[in-house]
């Protein structure tokens, strides 16, 4: 009796392979759902210690697989998932690209005849160029925990802020142009006219599944608006509304002395001016070396996760506001 091969819902392909010194290859792969129509992409794992985006790719792949199984016609565009642009770093728990100790997100737009990090960057640029929307998911680093937010360079704010508002995240941070950030994926794509939003959420080396679910609602809503998903597809309504942060209302709290930072508040809380946010204490004796107070009424949107601090280490960021958004206690 003849058997029918199961319908292939998604396919994977390698956008770059490079020989390693001994019997292995580096391969950068992507997973593609659908064909034709508006093309959108999710990028994750540029930093090998950030895994929140990998889980977002998994959840989206699962959702898309189910959609294509039940209503294949509802996917009216093409979705590309790039879950790990830095597979060597991810597989060896290194933030940078191993061997080169290079920050992949400082290697864009890359060079297809350059060193390995530059070739990864060039391959990613070549494949992402021209997409209707690219979302680059980051998870802060191992030191700081972030509430779900979009970061936008002010050079591209006019075009990107309206799109970011639909992402169901809690903060849109429009930051000043810094030259070194010109070598990021997002800046390179936006400079070429391909819209790219940077999502930061959670903390390095950890998953925060509730953040992922929140993000996915926003991504699906945006894709629907871009015509990637049929209007009839039912997507949960967004339930988060972003605060707008910029250089005028973001306060940085850097450590005045070195020691052990012990927070006195939980992340993503409304705080008031003068409130104690934490203490820097000595592990050598019972002394409190420094007390950290909030400089303003606002929302604690960044909180230090790794307790040891040097003078200057960032402990918290507050966006000043007199309203308490949904999600913050």
């Amino acid at each position: 009796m003849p058997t029918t091969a199961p319908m292939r819902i998604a396919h994977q392909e390698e956008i770059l392979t490079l020989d390693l010194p001994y019997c292995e290859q580096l391969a950068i792969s992507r997973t593609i759902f659908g064909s034709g129509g508006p093309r959108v992409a999710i990028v994750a794992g540029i930093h090998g210690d950030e895994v929140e985006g990998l889980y977002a790719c998994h959840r989206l792949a699962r959702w898309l697989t189910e959609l294509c199984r039940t209503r294949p016609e509802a996917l009216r565009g093409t979705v590309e998932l790039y879950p790990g642009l830095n597979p060597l770093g991810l597989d060896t728990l290194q933030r940078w690209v191993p061997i080169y100790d290079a920050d992949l997100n400082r290697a864009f737009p890359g060079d297809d005849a350059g060193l390995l990090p530059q070739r990864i960057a060039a391959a990613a640029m070549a494949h992402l160029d021209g997409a209707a929307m690219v979302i680059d998911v980051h998870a802060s680093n191992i030191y700081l925990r972030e509430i779900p937010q979009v970061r936008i360079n002010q050079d591209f704010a006019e075009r990107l802020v309206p799109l970011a508002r639909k992402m169901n995240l809690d903060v849109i941070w429009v930051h000043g142009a810094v030259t070194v950030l010109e070598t990021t994926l997002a800046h390179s794509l936006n400079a070429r006219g391909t819209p790219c939003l940077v999502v930061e959420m959670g903390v390095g080396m950890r998953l925060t599944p509730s953040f992922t679910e929140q993000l996915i609602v926003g991504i699906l809503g945006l894709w629907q608006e871009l015509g990637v998903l049929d209007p009839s597809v039912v997507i949960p309504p967004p339930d988060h509304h972003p605060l707008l942060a910029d250089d005028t209302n973001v306060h940085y709290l850097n450590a005045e002395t070195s020691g052990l930072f012990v927070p006195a508040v939980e992340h993503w809380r409304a705080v008031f001016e003068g409130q104690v946010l934490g203490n820097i204490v000595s592990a050598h004796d019972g002394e409190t070396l420094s007390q950290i107070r909030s400089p303003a009424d606002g929302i604690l949107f960044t909180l230090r996760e790794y307790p040891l601090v040097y003078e200057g280490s960032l402990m918290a960021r507050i966006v000043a506001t007199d309203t308490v958004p949904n999600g913050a206690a």
Partner: protein
Amino acid sequence: MAVSALLRMTAPMRRDFEIPYHDLGDPDQPPRVALVAGLHGDEINGVFVLSRLANFLGGVDLGERAAQTLLGRVIIIPAVNVLGLNIRSRTWPFDKTDINRMFPGYDAGETSQRIAHAVLQVTRDARYRIDLHSSNLDIEESPQVRLYDPSPGERSTAFLFGLPAVVERPSSSLFTATIGHAWQGLGGENFVIQAGQAGNLHLAYCERLFRALVDFLRRTGTLEGVELSEEDEDSYYFGPQQSLQLISDYAGIFVSNLHPGRWVQAGDVIGYVYHGFDGEIHGEIRTPVAGLLTALRRQPLLCQGDLVGRVHTRR
């Protein structure tokens, strides 16, 4: 002669630490020359050369060397990344930031921004500023002066070191947070010197650099009464279009018996790439042009697309 600290800092668990520097000559004058090394904790040549230079100039400053006089104030920071040097880390070890990507720094910012800010404060008033490097763990560089989008004055002053190569490169967005770029914004004349390979001490290069720095101090009127024992070797200027990178299309184990700093002919074999598993020769790397081999790979493990060397051509 004085030893000062450009920064004192507490540490979470270790003793408080400081980044010391030598302040030589008349403290009432603005610095004439500022020398910095060890922004990267794994680059040892510059640290050794600057510590030896401080020792020599300290003797001059104290009047211990007859007929030699320090005419201008000289600031010497042998190592900026003190903790990195001590634990053999290229970057600032706590958060792995590259201090030479944190300039101009910020005195209320992250630790490495504070360090960068302090370095800039101590060196900002100098007429001449020099940053010494020794490549990375993979590549050995022959002694050379590097210029990034230089002024005509810098192009000409670069020859006062008497080093065999003066290499001009275009600046790029990758370099806008370096000390060299921050210095350019302050005026004066600014130089990067490269020699050797990170993680190693190359005595011959160190001796060459020491001589080059003394020569520079003498020729800029900062130091008088020094007699140099040897004549200069020829110095060559290479513009941005005269640099060729040798990239390997093969992965494997790279073997070469050459040394950087020698002249090569078009077609010369620079090295061989062996297959790591079966020992076969995968391919050979030849230079398509004649010129000065200013950089050569020392790390044998080679990925496809890696840099093997750099040749600077006369045309």
